[in-house]
């Protein structure tokens, strides 16, 4: 049996995330994998804007906090000048798929050798639950009070599908954190992404489907069910690109 203990990369303090928020779990998975790979001191967390920015309070490893949407650009500057570091950006859906769309697509297209962890909970959590680029059709938010209408707001952006059309990325995968199997798969996916980066293979992208009990106006358990019936059918988990497998 593995011993269950606190990750040394996460501060010994109460989480600032809302009860039932899967951000805590996502952060935990990332820190566990980094420790397992013995990269604690070598890792560098590029912290984005949104609820993800709460990592400023909890992340015990080296970090650089950056402007909204710009994490892949800042990570480019870091990795190009310090290629030996294990660099990852941790971004939410508003940060990555709206204001930072140019930065994520361009970094992926350049094949920058770092990892992006993308927490997709279909809302702007930190600012109070506005419509995100990933908000589902019909999903109610503070800026779509009758539900997202594609006639005026378009459709939820599928980032794994978009990024996997590019030549350069070596690993693109999506996992849902609302089940033990999803969590275990996600852990393996994050590990694979970091290992590929350590081997200098190129750009790796791991999307984690998460929740927002507060802004979805649900109990934590209800959000997990909602993810099964609504989120997962639209944002299908799976490995969208894995060039290492293709070559084998």
């Amino acid at each position, binding site marked *: 049996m593995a011993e269950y203990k606190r990750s040394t990369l996460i501060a010994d303090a109460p989480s600032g995330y809302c009860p039932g928020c899967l951000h805590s779990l996502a952060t935990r998975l990332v820190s566990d994998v980094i420790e397992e790979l013995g990269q604690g001191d070598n890792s560098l967390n*590029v912290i984005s804007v949104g609820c993800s920015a709460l990592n400023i309070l909890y992340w015990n490893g080296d970090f650089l906090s950056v402007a909204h949407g710009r994490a892949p650009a800042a990570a480019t500057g*870091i990795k*190009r000048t310090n290629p030996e570091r294990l660099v990852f950006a941790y971004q939410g859906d508003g940060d990555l798929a709206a204001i930072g769309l140019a930065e994520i697509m361009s970094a992926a297209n350049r094949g920058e050798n770092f990892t992006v962890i993308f927490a997709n909970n279909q809302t702007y959590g930190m600012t109070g639950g506005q419509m995100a680029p990933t908000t589902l059709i019909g999903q109610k938010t503070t800026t779509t009070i009758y539900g997202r209408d594609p006639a005026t707001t378009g459709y939820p952006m599928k980032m794994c599908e978009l990024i996997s059309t590019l030549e350069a990325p070596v690993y693109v995968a999506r996992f849902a954190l609302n089940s033990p199997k999803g969590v275990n798969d996600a852990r393996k996916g994050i590990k694979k992404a970091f290992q590929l980066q350590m081997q200098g293979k190129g750009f790796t992208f791991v999307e984690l489907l998460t929740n927002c009990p507060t802004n979805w106006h649900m109990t934590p358990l209800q959000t997990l069910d909602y993810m099964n019936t609504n989120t997962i059918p639209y944002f299908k988990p799976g490995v969208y690109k894995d060039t290492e497998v293709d070559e084998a």
Partner: protein
Amino acid sequence: MGEKRFMKGNEAIAEAAVRGGCRFFAGYPITPQNEIPEYFSWRLPEVGGAYVQGESEIASVNMVYGAAAMGTRAMTSSSGPGISLKAEGISYLAAAALPAVIVNISRGGPGLGSIQPAQSDYLQATKALGHGGFHAMVFAPNSAQEAVDVLYDAWDYAERDRNPVLVLMDGCLGNIMEEVELPPMKELKDEDLPEWSLTRRNGRDWQGNITPIYTELILEGINAAAGDMYKDWEENDVKVEEFMLEDAEYVVVAYGIASRVAKEAILNLREKGFKVGMIRPITLFPFPKKSIKNLDYGKVKGVIDIEMTIPAQMRDDITLQVMERCPVYEYGRSGGCLLDDEGVYEAIYEIVSGGE
């Protein structure tokens, strides 16, 4: 001594930056500064540095933000419209206390404006380079040689202050070719990387973090410390050229390309017996307040602000120091129209020959 070369201003800027230790550049094409990224794209790999063509000015300045956080001497360049896009990142550099160098080879504005040279970004450079009320030191060299000297030492200021440095030139200075004497390459060692930087090459073994966001009391303290820093600059870092001021009855204030045209006009007017001198700010921020404030107003009958932009943008800074002790006049061209010898001569002549 140094190595002499005949270079375009833009290329001289890039070479001097490399010799000053710059090892990362990210930028986005915009006229009239394209020779800067073009030069870096092949030059940086030669010295073990990295060049990235960003997908936008916004991305480019944020790449610089990342590189600067690692202690790497990093730079970006652009022209007016692109500097507006970089405003976000420059503000974040100031907030996160990161040294970096930004070069603006300015053109006509506002908006897309024109691609011809202009000095229309003075207010942006000196008053509000981004949101949140911060300043950067602003250098305004008036020749390729002075640009070399400024760029060579720019990171020394940026790292001393942990603050971005802006170099403001114009499309004319960026594109004319002049002889320059290049200084030797600064040899920077890994162990000398700043102790606060997030690199581990400097031997740091403790957790490092850099952030542009603070709780309110800490931020108030940071704002106040920045205010003190700006006062220190005013005391210690002003650079100014004072030209023929001893007996001057009229004093031209001009920087950059305008100062070169004005100097010609002043020499011609001197031949005709008119006592005209010039104050040339080399740092626009800190502004050479004392040079203007301490003029002998028993003798000086007028101060003439000459800029390649209309309306003049430096005039308020001059007026604050003149304190109504004599009239302040202005003359300029704008929109990408160049100041020329006759126009500047006539403008000054009209004022000094008794006309108002």
